[in-house]
Structures are given as structure tokens and as C-alpha cells.
């Protein structure tokens, strides 16, 4: 009997890591995601899991751990980029018998799911980091505040916590050192503002999730009035890696002021969407053109939106900017928690700003005046402009109100809420002016400003007449047709149907 011929293929199979999407990536926080079974603590341990904790508890002092985190240069991945080591230092220095460690897993930016992926794909890395943090700052109780809309993340966290307790990595006398640390999950009800640290704390305490004035800062007076260390999921996910591999290795990644990697949720008008973890300082061009593969349909890249509703739009002119905390804020955007939305020439920037403001209006907690009423008024001004009745005075008022909300709001949600407007005003002012002065939406998005018409390419085939739902199109067969703007509802059906490119809008 003849042996079966092995299957061969003409083309060479490339390693996944060599594809454009992956070859620029460096997976630190996501190191185990998709690699191990997240419901198996043994697999996590097999990938060196809990070795950093073991070493920390048995060989290192709390002060040494804080020192390592400080030297690593790790900065908060939740958005603000505050040096993590300094946060740990403050919490460690606070004098109190009771302290807490908390994890912010209330990921709320539209389209962002970095934290969710870490929790779903590698929950033990967060648990391990929190126990280490507890040891470093002198806390024995931790809370993970995770939104209830992440049921799989919650389930896997529960499994992971149970396993960690069974293995003695949580509870009393961890690794026989006498150190005790316990962890509880608190579910959020999906309020964006609960990602703000004081609102998150207030919510864990059982109250309506609203921010409170700082000072006092959580490191001094946080959860239940006690010193509290609060970090984001992605920040924690870096900790075991840093302790395993040494701060030097971590600090070697990234830029001078921004160390390590950052995960982005790449979305919008881009070929390859999904989570992307790249060294900080990678240029926007690399992420958009190489990792993301550029805009689909050969459309022109127009802008990238980072930082979600708190961030800003980076115009194509800045595509070579390195993505790091300082560079992004210098051009009016922000790193944020990692949302990265790509826009092409078909996006109207005024409409984009309005979209984000709409989100903020919904998600403002309603406590302070500038955010509660100011964002609503901002949104109304944008509605007026996109609706076609805006004036240049409205644009001036828009700018003044943006500055007011930024400068007067109680918490970061309000203070950053005008950023989408401010950055689009900065880079795409001509679009605002087109809406206000010319009464045109250059991208053809804002319905209030759209007019459909028929040009000379029309053959009088009547296809558009038959598809029009409101009977707005008329004309004789084989003659040029016309659209009655009073009847047209701008549904675009005629444009999609026409085979002669005879329907025009603008």
C-alpha cells in the first residue's frame, strides 16, 4: 500500500507574528491572552504566573517593590498617565491601619475593550498584581470594580479568584509568609463616570456613582475613608511582567517619558480592526498604515480619534506623531484608555464632535453645573450647526463654553468633555465654517445641510422614481429627472440605485 502523500501548498505559510498586523506589536499586557486557557490557573502558572508574587513575598520588601515599579516608568493606563510607582508610593506612605487596593475595570469608552480582553483572557495577571500591590502598600483587602455588561470577564474573574484561593494565593498566610489579602468583585451598572476614580470609590461604597472633590486624594482618603490604591486593569497586567523580567527590560521599551507598551482598540475606517499592543512611541502612521492596513476602499485617511469622548482628533498632517502621553496632549488629544478610531474623507468632523458630545451628555453624572448643563448646551450648539442654522456667533460661543466646561468642571469627565470639539475646531475649523457660512457639509454627512440633485448624466431610466419612498422624483421617460427638495427625505435610496452617477448630493 502506498503511503499517503503529505499535503503540500504552493505558497509559503507565514507565521502569524510576521503578518503586518502582528509584526509591529509587542505583547506585554496581552502576553497570555489567547495563549493560555484563562480558566486554568495551572496554565497561568506554567507561564510563570504567580512567580512574581512568590518572589515578592518571600524575597523582596514592600519598599523594594515600590522602587521597582517606580523605576520601570510604568504610567497609569486608564488615561491620565500618572506614574504608577508614585501612586504606590503615596499609598504606601499613608499612615493607616486599614488600606485598600482597587482595580478599575469600568471600561467605558465607546468601542474600547482592552480591559475586557485582559480580564477575559488573563484574569490571574490582574489578581497576582493586586496581591503584590496589597503587599507593597500594606493593604489586605482588594476590590475589582467591573461593569456588569462584561459577564464573561466577571465569570472568569470569579473562577480565577476561586482558584487563587484554593491554591493559597489569596486569603490568609499567602506562600506561608503570614501576609493576608482578599479580593472581592463589585459590579458597576455601566456608568461611564464610574471610571473616574472618586466616582468609582463612591460607587463601591454603595452610593450613587458620582465624583467627589480632590483633595483629599484616594491615596490619602479613599474607599470608606481609608488610603486606597487604585489602578486600571491594563496597568496591573503589566506588573507581574515587570517583576519577572526586571524594570530595566520594561523601561527599555517606549520613549524617554513613556515606558512600556500600550494596547489600542483600533476601529473605524480601517482594514484591520481589533486590539493592538505596540511599544509606546510607535508612530500613528505605523499603526494606521501597517498594523491597520490603511483605510478600506482606497479612501483617504482624514483623522484618528484617541482617548474616546475625552480625547481629540489627530489630523492626517500629524500622522507621523509618536503615540505617547506628552506628544498626544501637545496636539490637543490624549492617550486615554486606548480607543483609536480612524476616520476617512467620508467623516464629517463636526458630526464626529457632536457624536461624542451626545455620549458625554448621556454619561455626565449630573452633579456639577458646567458638565450637567454645559455639555447639553454644547451639544445643542452643535446640533444647530449641523442642522444648518448655526452662525459664527454660535461658533464663538461654542469655543467659550468649551473653555468654561474644561476649566470649571468637578472631575475629569467634565474637564475633558469639550476635547472632541476643541480638537476638531483646531484642525478642522474650515468644516465648521462650511457648515455655518456656506451651509454645506463637505463630507455629505449632516442631513440638515444635504441637498440631492440630478445632473446631466441622467438617462431618464426611471429607476430612481421607483425606489423613492416619498415620490420626490419626477420626470418623463428618457428625459432628465428632477428631485423636489420639499419632498426629499435624504434617504440616499436614489443614489444607491442610479447606475449612471447622475444623483449628486452636497
Amino acid at each position, binding site marked *: 500500500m502506498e503511503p499517503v502523500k503529505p499535503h503540500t501548498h504552493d505558497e509559503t505559510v507565514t507565521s502569524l507574528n510576521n503578518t503586518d498586523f502582528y509584526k509591529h506589536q509587542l505583547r506585554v499586557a496581552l502576553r497570555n491572552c489567547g495563549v493560555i486557557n484563562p480558566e486554568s490557573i495551572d496554565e497561568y502558572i506554567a507561564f510563570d504566573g504567580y512567580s512574581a508574587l512568590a518572589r515578592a513575598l518571600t524575597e523582596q520588601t514592600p519598599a523594594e517593590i515600590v522602587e521597582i515599579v517606580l523605576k520601570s516608568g510604568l504610567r497609569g493606563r486608564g488615561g491620565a498617565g500618572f506614574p504608577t510607582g508614585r501612586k504606590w508610593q503615596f499609598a504606601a506612605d499613608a499612615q493607616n491601619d486599614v488600606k485598600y487596593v482597587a482595580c478599575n475595570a469600568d471600561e467605558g469608552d465607546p468601542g474600547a475593550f482592552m480591559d475586557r480582553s485582559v480580564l477575559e483572557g488573563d484574569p490571574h495577571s490582574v489578581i497576582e498584581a493586586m496581591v503584590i500591590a496589597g503587599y507593597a502598600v500594606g493593604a489586605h483587602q482588594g476590590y475589582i470594580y467591573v461593569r456588569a455588561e462584561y459577564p464573561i470577564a466577571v465569570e472568569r474573574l470569579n473562577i480565577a479568584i476561586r482558584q487563587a484561593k484554593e491554591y493559597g494565593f489569596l486569603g490568609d498566610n499567602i506562600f506561608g509568609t503570614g501576609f493576608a489579602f482578599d479580593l472581592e468583585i463589585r459590579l458597576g451598572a455601566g456608568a461611564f463616570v464610574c471610571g473616574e476614580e472618586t466616582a468609582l470609590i463612591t460607587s463601591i461604597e454603595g452610593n450613587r456613582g458620582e465624583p467627589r472633590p480632590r483633595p483629599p486624594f484616594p491615596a490619602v482618603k479613599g474607599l470608606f475613608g481609608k488610603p486606597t490604591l487604585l489602578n486600571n486593569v491594563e496597568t496591573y497586567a503589566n506588573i507581574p511582567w515587570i517583576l519577572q523580567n526586571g524594570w530595566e527590560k520594561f523601561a527599555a521599551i517606549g520613549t524617554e517619558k513613556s515606558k512600556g507598551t500600550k494596547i489600542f482598540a483600533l476601529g473605524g475606517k480601517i482594514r484591520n480592526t481589533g486590539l493592538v499592543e505596540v511599544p509606546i512611541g510607535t508612530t500613528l502612521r505605523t499603526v494606521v498604515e501597517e498594523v491597520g492596513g490603511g483605510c478600506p476602499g482606497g479612501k483617504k485617511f482624514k483623522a484618528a480619534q484617541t482617548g474616546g469622548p475625552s480625547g481629540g482628533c489627530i489630523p492626517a498632517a500629524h500622522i507621523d506623531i509618536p503615540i505617547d502621553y506628552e506628544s498626544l496632549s501637545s496636539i490637543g488629544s490624549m492617550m486615554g484608555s486606548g480607543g483609536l478610531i480612524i476616520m476617512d474623507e467620508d467623516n464629517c468632523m463636526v458630526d464626529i464632535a457632536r457624536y461624542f458630545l451626545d455620549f458625554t451628555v448621556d454619561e455626565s453624572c449630573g452633579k456639577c453645573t458646567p458638565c450637567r448643563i454645559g455639555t447639553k448646551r454644547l451639544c445643542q450648539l452643535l446640533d444647530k450647526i449641523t442642522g444648518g442654522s448655526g452662525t459664527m456667533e454660535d461658533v464663538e460661543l461654542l469655543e467659550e463654553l468649551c473653555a468654561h466646561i474644561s476649566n*470649571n468642571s468637578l472631575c475629569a469627565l467634565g474637564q475633558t468633555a469639550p476635547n472632541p470639539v476643541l480638537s476638531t475646531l483646531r484642525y478642522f475649523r474650515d468644516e465648521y465654517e462650511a457648515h455655518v457660512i456656506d451651509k454645506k457639509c463637505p463630507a455629505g454627512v449632516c442631513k440638515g445641510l444635504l441637498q440631492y440633485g440630478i445632473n446631466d448624466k441622467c438617462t431618464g431610466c426611471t429607476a430612481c422614481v421607483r425606489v423613492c419612498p416619498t415620490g420626490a422624483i419626477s420626470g418623463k421617460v428618457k428625459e432628465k429627472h428632477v428631485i423636489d427638495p420639499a419632498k426629499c427625505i435624504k434617504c440616499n435610496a436614489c443614489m444607491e440605485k442610479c447606475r449612471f452617477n447622475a444623483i449628486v448630493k452636497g
Partner: protein
Amino acid sequence: MADTVKLKINGMDVEAPQGATILEAARQIGIEIPTLCYMKEINAIGACRICVVEVKGARTLVASCVYPVAEGMEVTTNSGTVYKARRATLELILSNHRKDCLTCLRSQNCELQKIAKDAGIQEVRFHSDNLEPQIENSTLHLVRDNSKCILCRRCVAVCKQNQSVAVIGPNDRGFDTHISCAFDRNLDEVPCVSCGQCITVCPTGALTERDETEKVFLALADPGKHVVVGAAPSIRVTLGECFDMPVGSNVEGKMVAALRRLGFDRVFDVNIAADLTIMEEAHEFISRVQNGGVLPLITSCSPGWIRFCEQYYPEFIPNLSSCKSPQQMFGAMVKTYYAQKEGLNPEDVFVVTIMPCTAKKYENHRDGTSALDGIPDVDVALTTRELARMIAHSGIMFRDLPDEEPDEAFSENTGAGVIFGATGGVMEAALRTAVESITGKELPDVEFTAVRGTEGIKEAAYAVGDLNVRTAVSSGLANARKLLEGIKSGERQYDFIEIMGCPGGCVNGGGQPVQPQTVRNFTDLRAIRAKSLYDMDREKPLRKSHENPLIQKVYEDFLGEPGSHKAHEVLHTRYQKREKYPGVKV
């Protein structure tokens, strides 16, 4: 750590206590920073953002009401940035406020109106919502109109922090945020105690008492009605504030003169009913002590407290004194004793009381407790504020009025009745009578100073003959809760307790004149108003209820003796457990 820090405000050197806020430090150099949400220690939430100032080095403007001073800090309260910020925030608030000032009860006593006027706001540049009234008037004592609410949360704070009642809070979020009860239930469907503390702290007209002045005007105009009025002890030291007189002014004589000019057929004094309360309550206390009755005995003058007890602590109902409140005793006596004496048909007698309290409006509708079947003891209870409106509406020149005396038939009173208006007053008045009654000896000193003062909970033990009488006095329902929990746990033991619903007692009742928070934050209204009452007590020739000759006559002619069957029929009441959420299965 040094006790003070040095900083600069508008270039001027200021030395402020460690931990003080910028707002407090600025007052030291004579600068009052406006606020709308800030209530010292109760509502320091930095929400309204009216009080923002510039701090050198800070990324944004900061809320001076909550921002602590620090060594070397440089603050500017009057920069162009602050000027613009305050105005823009005001415009935003005004854009979402029903600005019908001319038809608002709080016009000219509205903190928002004043700040907007001081800032010279002449237009609102932002889109203004065309707001319709949003009236919630399910209860007998107050009206909420959220179209005027600016979400300062002061009402929420007093309800929760001072009263531990917490039936109101923010619902929904963002622009849709509004203050209401859980699940947007009406106020009469939640365990509100009707204390009205929320009204006295509201900076705008969003919260007002349910106005009943029209009923009184119409009764006065009805020739078939014999309209009798009496004012509670505390009114005489607060009413003057409504006519721009200093806090604590004693206006007893002018008040009587004003009531007479309003056209009441008889102007009596509720103080005498306070004396009567003492007669009954002291007797009740002694009889419980001597006959092994339920102790501690707890006073029952404050209907806010009574409702709190019935809803939250029904297990203490047996401890409550069965005595009606002075208001109800007043009405009951007018409609029985006085009507009988004057040959009037009780149905034609219309009793109006002037009360420091909104819960009195509720108390008038407590079922089945009136002295005469089907006839309420009191027909209308007006707050101090409503009386002030009646006086103003009638063109009575209050400040120029002469001092007048009330009508004799039911007015004569003692210092013991006067001090009912302050926390500790009822206890002190009761002790003056009870001690003499038990020991049979005259008290060398009638002042029981240990139960005076504005602290939330006061304790004092007195040796009375062979007895050691352990007393406690609390005001503000959060303190009542603390006290009752302490009794339940066995940690506290008493024989006699006075509980008042409002912090500081009636002088700070929910029906009292509204003072802006800029005053309340830095002036203890309770102490100043109470001092006036104690001053009046000191001036009185008689300071013990049982020495009141009219009271003695009333017992002789009508009631028999304290605790008699007749007294019980007219002056006592009963209590019942009340469901917190009627109709809701928990």
C-alpha cells in the same frame, strides 16, 4: 505641623487655620465668595461651581468651598477668568431654571436671584429651556417644583445627614438628573416625616411650604366664624427676621399687634398650652415612675419626631408621652373650654396657629385625636413665613407697630412655656414642675443649664428626692436615631427624654424664616434665637408652669386635675405604627 498656614488672597497676606477652606480664609479679609450648594459640614460637595477661584499652579479653577488652604498658596478671587467663569456658570444655571420670579414665593429671598443680580446678569446666551411648572404636592406640608431646582442637593443633605430620613435624592443622571424619591414615588408614598428642614435650606423656590394663607384670609372675612389665633413660643424670636430685623429680635408685642390688625377675633398665646403640656407631662412622668410605667418617657411635642417614631421606631411608641403637642392642646382648649365659657358653638370657632413647623400641618390631620368628634382641634397651622406674608400683604407696618398684649381668656404663661422653643426647653420646664411636685419643696434655682445648648445630644442626671432622674435631650432626627439605637443596645439608659425633630428645636424648625446659607454657614441661628427665649424666661415673674394662675383656674373650672379623665379626653392622644412604604410589600 503648624496650626496655621500663610497664604495670599488677591495679593493680601492671610493666616488661616490648617484645614480651613479658601472660602473661609477669604472671609478673614472681608471677602464673601458666593455659593449655592455649600453647607458647612453638611453639604461640602463642590457641585454648583459658583465659588470657583484661581489658585496659582492649579490646572483648573477650584471650588473654594471645599479646597483646603496650603502654605504659600496664591489665590485670586477677582480675576477676569473668575469673573467670566462665575457668570457663565450662572447663565448655565439660569438656562435651566424657571425664571418666573414675579410669581415665586421666594422672590427677593432667593439666593440664586441675589447672586445673579449681584453679578449683573442681563441675558442668558445659551439655549434656555422653556420650563413648565413641575409640581409635586402630594403631602400636606410642602410643594416641590423641580422647574426651579438647581440641584444643589442641600435638601438631600439635610434629609440624610441631619435627619437620617434620606427619602430624597438625585434620580436619573446628566441633564435629566432631578431630585425626587426612590423610583420617583411621591413624597406621601415614602417615610418623609414632614419636618420641612429641606425647605429652609433650599436656595430657590423649588421647595416651599404648602401655603394655607388663603384659607385664613377667607375665614377672617367670614362673619360667621369666630377666628382665634395663637403663636408658638419660638415665633416671637424669629418673625422679626422676615422684616429685616436682626436674628433673635424679640417681637412678641409687635406680633400680637400684627395678629390683631389682621382681624383675628381673639389673639391668644400657645405658650399657655405649653404650660398645660408640662402639667400633663410632668404628671405622666411622675405617675410612670411611681407606678412602674414604661420608661424612659419620651416627649411628644414635635410632630416630625412623632412621625419618625411611628414609622422608623414603632417599638418606642409605648415610651411616648400620650400628651398632645402644645398646638393641639391649644386648639382643643379653645374649642372646648373657651367656646363653652363664651357660649360659642365649637363648629363656628376657627383656630389658627402660627408654628415654626411644617409637620404641624400634617399633625392637624392625624386621625381621630381631636377633643370633639368630627371637629379638628386646629383648623390651619401657618408657618412663620406664611404669617409674614399675610402681614406684608395686609400692609401692616410691622416694624412700626406698638407692643400689644394678647387677649386674656387664654394667654397668660410662664417662662417654662417660653423656653419650649429651644432644644432642652421642654425638659427644663418639665423638671421645674416635676421636681417640685416630687420633693414638695421649692427649687432654689429653676435653671437646669445642663440641658441647654445646641449640641445634638445632651445628658444630665438629677437627684430628685430619693430618685436619680437620668435625662437626655436630642434634636435633629439623626441624633434621635443615635439615642434610640443606644437605648436598644443597652448602652444608654434614661428615665426621661426630650426629642425634637429639628436640629436646635423649634427655633430652627422647618417653618422658620429662611436665611441664606452665607448666613447659616457662619452664624449659629439656633443659639441666637434660643438665647432670646432664655432671656424672656429670665424676665418672667413666673417661671414654673404649675404656678400659672390661669392654668390653675383651668384645672379648677374645667379639667379637674392633671391626668384626669377630662384631661385625657381633651389633651391626650394615641399613636400607631405606620408603614414606611404603604402598599409596598418588602
